[in-house]
């Protein structure tokens, strides 16, 4: 096992932590458009470029649609490309999200979660990235600035793995993480360089065009390939099947990258997919995403002191969804409360529906309640979390009905 390397601590907010991760990751091209609460990422990176601290091309664009399009072009030319956005910006990228994934380009994007308009809101909820969950991107939801830094570095390695070749979206909660100062441990530049290396372009065989020779999967006049042409009912479905399989292979790669990174940094987040907290003898647990799960740990501690057997599980990777892990662990509990900082109007929160699909037909599946909270950055105070735990404890006796509960709204 590798030795944990000595690191330097800096006071950074979540956005700055991401910018530092990008600075150290040998990125070739950054193309991004500023939007609150992501702006600081773009500002810091452009400062790094302006000051000559990085060897990176910063492409200024007129919109997010163009920002991601520029990354698509750069990545297709073999570059390591990065962009960042939030809410409305992500929505403007929507067309290109699917294209990035289907062209199998390992672009990394950080999304600072912000409630989608309207009415216009700049604060955190997860409805922006939840809207993009089916676009074929890997999604990692982080809990704090340190994890945002760590996950951004990991994302390049996951995406560029030839078994995967899918773009990765790393998210952090707007303002709660993006603008909150925290002590962040930074790896030395050379350690990150060694961890990621230079992007290697995979090779493919196209016998009818290039004979037996393996050619790089990139835009290269020497070995011409066409990216993104018409693909109708004859082959489109086969290409989607390849994407489905790549996502399945990503499980192993995400786990490996997380473990390798833990060995050099000394930091890990559960098994990389889910982060359980004090669940060993728990009767009930609360499951959720993002920064709220930090507060949840504190509440778990408080309730444990009162003698209540509670725990929490944070889902870190949302796509591919860690269904086998969750299936295995959740059946140990009597009741589960699901925290959803998002809502599919006309249905439940997105995490809850995915958990229901995961547990359907499973013997010993727990009673499950969906708690929708915090839309538009509405605070989740410890008192409310405590109440939610109490309701989940009650469900052991009374059952989960009603399963859909909206919390923190007047």
């Amino acid at each position, binding site marked *: 096992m590798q030795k944990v390397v000595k690191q330097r601590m800096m006071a950074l907010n979540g956005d700055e932590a991401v910018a530092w991760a990008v600075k150290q990751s040998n990125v070739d091209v950054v193309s991004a458009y500023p939007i609150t609460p992501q702006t600081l990422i773009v500002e810091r990176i452009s400062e790094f470029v302006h000051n000559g601290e990085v060897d990176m091309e910063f492409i200024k664009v007129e919109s997010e649609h163009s920002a991601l399009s520029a990354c698509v072009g750069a990545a297709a030319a073999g570059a390591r490309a990065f962009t960042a956005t939030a809410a409305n910006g992500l929505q403007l990228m929507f067309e290109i999200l699917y294209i990035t994934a*289907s062209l*199998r380009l390992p672009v990394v994007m950080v999304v600072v979660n912000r409630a989608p308009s309207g009415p216009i809101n700049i604060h955190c909820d997860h409805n922006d990235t939840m809207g993009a969950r089916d676009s074929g991107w890997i999604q990692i939801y982080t809990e704090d600035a340190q994890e945002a830094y760590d996950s951004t570095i990991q994302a390049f390695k996951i995406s560029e793995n030839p078994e995967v070749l899918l773009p990765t979206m790393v998210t952090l909660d707007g303002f709660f993480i993006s603008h909150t100062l925290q002590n962040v441990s930074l790896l030395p530049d050379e350690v990150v360089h060694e961890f990621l290396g230079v992007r290697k372009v995979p090779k493919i065989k*196209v016998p009818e*065009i290039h004979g037996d020779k393996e050619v790089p*999967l990139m835009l290269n006049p020497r070995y011409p390939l*066409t990216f993104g*042409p018409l693909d109708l009912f004859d*082959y489109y479905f*086969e290409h989607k099947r390849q994407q489905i399989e790549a996502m399945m292979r990503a499980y192993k790669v995400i786990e490996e990258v997380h473990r390798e990174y833990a060995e050099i940094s000394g930091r890990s987040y559960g098994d990389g997919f889910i982060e359980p907290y004090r669940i060993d003898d728990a009767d009930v647990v609360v499951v959720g995403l993002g920064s709220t799960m930090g507060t949840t740990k504190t509440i778990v501690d408080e309730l444990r002191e009162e003698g209540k057997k509670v725990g929490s599980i944070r889902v870190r990777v949302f796509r591919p969804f860690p269904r086998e892990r969750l299936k295995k662990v959740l059946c140990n509990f009597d009741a589960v409360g699901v925290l959803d900082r998002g809502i599919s109007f006309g249905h439940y929160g997105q995490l809850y529906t995915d958990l229901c699909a995961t547990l359907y037909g499973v013997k010993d599946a727990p009673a499950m309640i969906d708690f929708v909270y915090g839309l538009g950055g509405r605070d989740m105070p410890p008192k409310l979390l405590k109440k939610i735990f109490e309701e989940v404890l009650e469900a052991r006796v009374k059952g989960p009905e009603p399963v859909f509960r909206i919390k923190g709204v007047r």
Partner: protein
Amino acid sequence: MSKRGWQEIPIAGIPFLESTEYHTGDWKVFRPVIDEQKCVKCGNCWMFCPDSAIEWDGESVPKPNYKYCKGCGICAEECPAKAIEMVR
């Protein structure tokens, strides 16, 4: 020929055949037919064809390549001798 499965084609939607193997002329409704008597061999149809589907040696009567001709009718429109008829 049976179509290839997902494990037999390149990833990323990269086409595995050269573009000439895609017979884009398959979907046309009208095809241009050149009247050799009327044709003045000016080369207008050859020049205007957006798909380069008209073959011409610079001397004789041009010949449409129906494998790639989509039947747009631009050649007929541009022919000064009205020598091209669009036939269903």
